[in-house]
């Protein structure tokens, strides 16, 4: 089985089948080093994701939304971006953040409850604030891309979002604006099969990638568990955008192996069999198998990745656990660039004096 039942309809673009055999041309322009690096990133990301779940269970993080199973979709797309590109994520793109060079400890401040949206510097990392209100960040991405276009810049803006997000009005308005303005943007949907408990089939009666045509730009459906395929379609979309040819909508079919978040109990809405089946098209073994067959990686490499992953997870844990609560002044420090006097200033004193 290459895909769970929820992947009905149009077959996605695919290069590696679930067992790691190429069904398309694997020469996507990633050399052996880059491919190894991609595998390494996936291994490290998954390990960190599991560490975060443990951290949450131990009370060191608040509710945490894992991404196990989505590593190829996230890393395959993220490595197709250049340093001038800019990402507006949801709350589930830790692996993208890492690929963009965002410090994991900084990122996890969000889930530690230390600060909101962007504890990291979104301008320096070119990775926007973590965004929870569903689909709102897509409009930010489109506006940002418009800004780049007006500046004559070469950067591309990528919005990440989930299948459930495509039901929000904000998805639609942003996508339509992207088409009208012909901005250098990529709308990257990770269709991971669920919006919390609601399967994609109950989210829409259509196919998400097909929405693009109604906005006047191309849409593409890709196997989101196939890193090569994800990389290839994202690279093409980014190239189109950079060349001034406008936006692309990518629907990457993947599967959320874990719970929606540590607060969620997926046993209420899906069977273990479904999750077991999903393990058979896990993106990591898929790439690894092929890379081994190609002779690009061996046991030693994979072991080294696992060791690096452990070390990174532990270092991140230490960093997270060591993060102190922020000073109470921060409640008032960032609200306004030009803070009001009067009652507002007195409130500040009342709050901080006490």
């Amino acid at each position: 089985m290459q895909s769970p039942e929820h992947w009905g309809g149009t077959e996605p673009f695919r290069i590696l089948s679930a067992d790691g055999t190429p069904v398309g041309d694997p020469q996507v322009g990633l050399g052996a080093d880059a491919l190894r690096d991609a595998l390494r990133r996936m291994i490290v990301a998954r390990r960190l994701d599991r560490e975060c779940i443990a951290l949450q269970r131990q009370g060191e993080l608040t509710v945490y939304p894992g991404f196990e199973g989505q590593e190829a979709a996230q890393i395959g797309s993220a490595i197709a971006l250049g340093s001038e590109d800019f990402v507006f994520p949801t709350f589930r793109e830790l692996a993208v953040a890492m690929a963009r060079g965002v410090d994991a400890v900084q990122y996890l401040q969000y889930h530690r409850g230390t600060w909101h949206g962007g504890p990291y510097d979104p301008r320096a990392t070119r990775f926007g604030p973590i965004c929870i209100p569903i689909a709102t960040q897509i409009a930010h991405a489109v506006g940002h891309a418009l800004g780049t276009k007006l500046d004559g810049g070469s950067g591309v803006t990528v919005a990440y979002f989930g299948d459930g997000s495509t039901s929000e009005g904000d998805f639609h308005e942003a996508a339509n604006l992207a088409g009208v303005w012909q901005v250098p943007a990529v709308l990257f949907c990770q269709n991971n099969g669920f919006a919390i408990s609601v399967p994609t089939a109950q989210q829409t009666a259509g196919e998400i990638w097909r929405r693009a045509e109604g906005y006047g730009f191309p849409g593409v459906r890709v196997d989101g568990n196939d890193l090569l395929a994800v990389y290839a379609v994202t690279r093409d979309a980014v190239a189109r955008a950079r060349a001034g040819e406008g936006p692309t909508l990518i629907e990457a079919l993947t599967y959320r192996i874990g719970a929606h978040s540590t607060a969620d109990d997926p046993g209420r809405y899906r069977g273990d069999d479904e999750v077991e089946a999903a393990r058979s098209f896990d993106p990591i073994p898929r790439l690894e198998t092929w890379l081994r067959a190609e002779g690009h990686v061996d046991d030693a490499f994979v072991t080294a990745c696992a060791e690096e992953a452990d070390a990174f997870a532990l270092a991140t844990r230490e960093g997270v656990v060591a993060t102190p609560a922020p000073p109470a002044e921060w409640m008032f420090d960032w609200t306004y660039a030009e803070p009001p006097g009067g009652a507002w200033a007195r409130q500040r004193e009342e709050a901080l004096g006490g």
Partner: protein
Amino acid sequence: MAESWTLSGALNRALLDALDDDPRLLVFGQDVGRSGGVFRVTDGLQAKFGAERVFDTPISEAGIAGAAVGLAFAGWRSVIEMQFDAFSYPALEQVIDHVAKMRERTRGRVDMPITIRIPSFGGIKGKEHHGESPETYYVHTAGLKVVVPSSPLDGYRLLRLAIADPDPVVVLEPKARYWGKEEGELTADGPGIGEGRMLREGDSCAIVSYGSIMARVLQAADALAAEGIAARVIDLRSLSPLDDEMLATAARDTGRIVVVHEAPRTLGMGAEVAARVMELAFDFLEAPVERVTGWDVPYPPASLEERYLPSIERISAAVRKVVAY
């Protein structure tokens, strides 16, 4: 022996009983069906009433509210859920323009028996957008009624009353109190929409509050009682309409009002309570109405929420201040 209820359980029971009583009642929203809601308030309802009457929707808050309006034209009554406080904002246009006004727009020909459930307020170390107090947006909107239970038994009552009401009612559920327990019989009898509840008697001053923070208000009142300050405690529970009578009586009896809420101060409920108390009982006021509230800043991250939420100390200090005024 009386049963013990959590707020989540009591609300669940209110929905169950209402679905049982009225075959034209629907319950829908994100994750309310198969999974039973993120706070389990709709647990088991789909299994019992079927996926035609209790169903999951796409993530489309405006569409959900708009569909409820259309369903009302077709003679259906709806309970819709907005998953968290801030996620009710995408539906504000539909709620302000249509849910609140459709009866007026149709000159009374089409009622809007729509109940909008919104898990609200902070105190659960939630992430941003999960701890907001949206009441001002709804209370200022004419045509809506807004209620806030602070306990399981009153939760059952208010939700049943809201569903039975021919007008749209926003029910703000104190998410920090979903798992707190109370013993007693579930009944819709008792104080109606528009009536407050006096939770403690007292004549030194009156503390007026609602929602999650009521629990702290009661703790503060108990501590103050030990100091010899007998603070009356009023649970507004109906923010729109407000129980003017109870407020006026409190002002007349005590001359000193403290209002406590989590929402930011400016144009929070405290402003309306202050203005009304002044209108109703100016001559009896011995001290200015004190507002103990969240600050005029965005709801802070988990690690600072205790510096934002009214604390027992802040509440008590305000009471001491008005009493000493």
